[in-house]
């Protein structure tokens, strides 16, 4: 099994059944950047943010910006088909990978995809991405680079109820506006991050929305105006547009430091990644709050609201076995709430070990068999990263250490 930086939150890079672990972090060379064609070849161990730093001055960047981008590798991003706030407009990793050189489990080396356009035949590149290391090991990746936007506007909207914030999100999408990013933070998160972000978040707001728009000035101004009107008609107290890059950075700093700040409240947290239809945000958030209250736990909400990608974060103390058991119970309830609302198990973290047992909630045996066929074509003997993704009788079921994220990463 391959392993990159090990920042994944679903346990995809946790070795099961004593496999040989092939660590790719030292394969960290940026092999070639073609500014004119807007592509770059990289090795899998290149850290996500290092590529965009390397591209500084070219007017280009690598669009996927997962929470872990300071630490996670592009190989890992390919394995989990990573997302991030700006995937709302630009799409997840798969939309930014042109080709992958893969060592298949039988040792054959294949190049999947094309440097330009779509490859002939089956989209084996697309099938490989998100395979969580169960389909082979990526050894070289051709990524597509995205033009830096000429202008960026960052808005901060504040609300006295989380419902109003959620309804504003739905209203923005319903109006046909697709922002670059649209994030929600609730009062608990704001209270935790403001002391060191100094973003000027309103401490008495029940929720704030961060909306980012990018592109050319007239289009941005028009969208800012329409979003302001929608927000006010849904109860927003204030619609603030960051005056300069410094203010934009502080608004994002608060969002990005949410997880470090939470360490001040409780030593551990369990983060649940699901997606729901974005018109049902308010209702599902209320359902989650009710379940959490019933289990006497503390929840914080900081998530990619624009695409309905929930990240309810339950803070707890893993040394307390009884509390940990309640966290796992409520985690399952949250997954069921998302599925019942017409949602899916994972928006960007993947299935790994964590959600294998829930696959049957979303998929029928026939659906799972189609996925198993895909897997077998790549790996007939089940040698690559065994016991992941598909529910099976395999071992390695004991996953209760829910993991800590390195300081400075964000989700």
């Amino acid at each position, binding site marked *: 099994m391959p392993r990159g930086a090990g920042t994944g939150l679903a346990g995809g890079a946790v070795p099961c059944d004593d496999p040989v672990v092939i660590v790719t972090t030292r394969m960290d060379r940026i092999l070639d950047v073609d500014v004119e064609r807007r592509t770059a070849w990289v090795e899998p161990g290149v850290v996500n943010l290092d590529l965009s730093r390397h591209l500084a001055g070219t007017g280009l960047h690598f669009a996927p910006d997962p929470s872990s981008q300071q630490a996670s590798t592009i190989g890992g991003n390919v394995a989990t088909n990573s997302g991030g706030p700006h995937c709302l407009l630009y799409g997840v990793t798969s939309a930014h990978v042109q080709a992958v050189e893969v060592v298949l489990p039988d040792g054959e080396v294949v190049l999947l995809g094309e440097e330009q*356009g779509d490859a002939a035949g089956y989209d084996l590149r697309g099938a490989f991405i998100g395979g969580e290391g169960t389909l082979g090991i990526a050894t070289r990746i051709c990524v597509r680079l995205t033009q830096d936007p000429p202008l960026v506007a960052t808005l901060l909207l504040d609300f006295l109820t989380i419902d109003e914030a959620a309804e504003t999100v739905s209203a923005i999408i319903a109006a046909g506006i697709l922002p670059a990013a649209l994030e929600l933070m609730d009062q608990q998160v704001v209270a935790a991050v403001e002391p060191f972000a100094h973003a000027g978040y309103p401490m008495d707001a029940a929720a704030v929305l961060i909306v980012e728009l990018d592109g050319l000035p007239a289009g941005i101004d028009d969208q800012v105006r329409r979003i302001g009107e929608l927000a006010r008609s849904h109860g927003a107290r204030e619609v603030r547009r960051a005056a300069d890059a410094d203010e934009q950075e502080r608004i994002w700093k608060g969002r990005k430091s949410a997880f470090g700040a939470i360490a001040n409240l409780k030593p551990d947290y369990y983060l649940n990644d699901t997606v729901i239809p*974005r018109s049902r945000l308010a209702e599902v958030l209320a359902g989650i709050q009710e379940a959490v209250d019933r289990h006497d736990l503390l929840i914080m909400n900081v998530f990619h609201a624009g695409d309905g990608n929930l990240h309810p974060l339950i803070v707890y103390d893993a040394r307390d076995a009884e509390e940990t058991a309640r966290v796992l119970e409520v985690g399952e309830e949250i997954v069921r709430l998302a599925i019942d609302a017409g949602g899916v198990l994972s928006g960007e973290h993947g299935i790994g070990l964590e959600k294998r047992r829930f696959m049957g909630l979303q998929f029928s045996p026939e659906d799972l068999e189609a996925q198993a066929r895909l897997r077998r074509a790549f790996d007939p003997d089940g040698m690559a990263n065994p016991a992941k993704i598909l529910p099976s009788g395999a071992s390695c079921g004991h996953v209760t250490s829910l993991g800590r994220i390195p300081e400075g990463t964000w989700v």
Partner: protein
Amino acid sequence: MNRLTEFREAVGTDGAVCVRGGATRWDLGGDPAGAHEVRAPSGVEEFLPAEMTVTVGAGTTLAELTEVLGASGQEVALDGPPGATVGGALAVGRSSLRRGRVGSIADALLQADCVGADGALFTAGGPTVKNVTGYDVCRLLVGSLGTLALLGRVILRTRPVPESSLWLAGELTPGRVADVAYRPATVLWDGQRTTVRLEGHPSDLNDERERLVALGLGEVDEPELGPCMSRWVGQIAAGAVLDVLGGVVYGDLPKTLPVIEPGVHALASRMRDEFDPGRRLNPGRDPYRVAA
């Protein structure tokens, strides 16, 4: 009995079978001559503008879908000749000429309800706009010419129709144009002239037009591209036009089949064996025998 179940029964569990959509590109990758023809359900089942998704029978024409979505100012990233169906466009898997803005066709398919070679209905993907749950079977189906499973009903990602658009052309390299134009939807290059399509707010487009006119470009009508195309192999013959973002050449050219590495071919064959060991779905068709 719902229409998906009827479709499943029409496909059955044995014997060669193929789906007829608009048959606008019927011979692509081979002709499934003699196979029992079925038709996928048609009609827009549910359009959720506030969700930016639409559920549609695979047999629905692109024209009908475009009309329904357009009434709410939305569209999908699917293109095809007049008469083409949603299922046909997905099976062919050719991305839109506007892929610089709308993305690749594979990114448009969120969920597919299909009938497999064993005659069972299964669902690939999920209904939400963001989803990494399990293996991405949807992507395999796009461009597979119906050789892995037959599309019955799909959920597609919709997007806002651009407020305005314009085409400009002039004697400048695509790279030079790209330095000035922001995220062009289309970039065409014939070896001498670059043609671009820009989309966005009207006054932004006016500004961009002025900048590009200063470099020698002029506004043109939407170019007519012939139906013939071939994969780009590094040169552009006289009279041909390269779709830079799509890697495809248009023009009256000899069709060259793609060169497939043996390892990739073996993997693709294993995939077809897994999904359709008896080769009953669209027999005679091979997605690797398509020039572009």
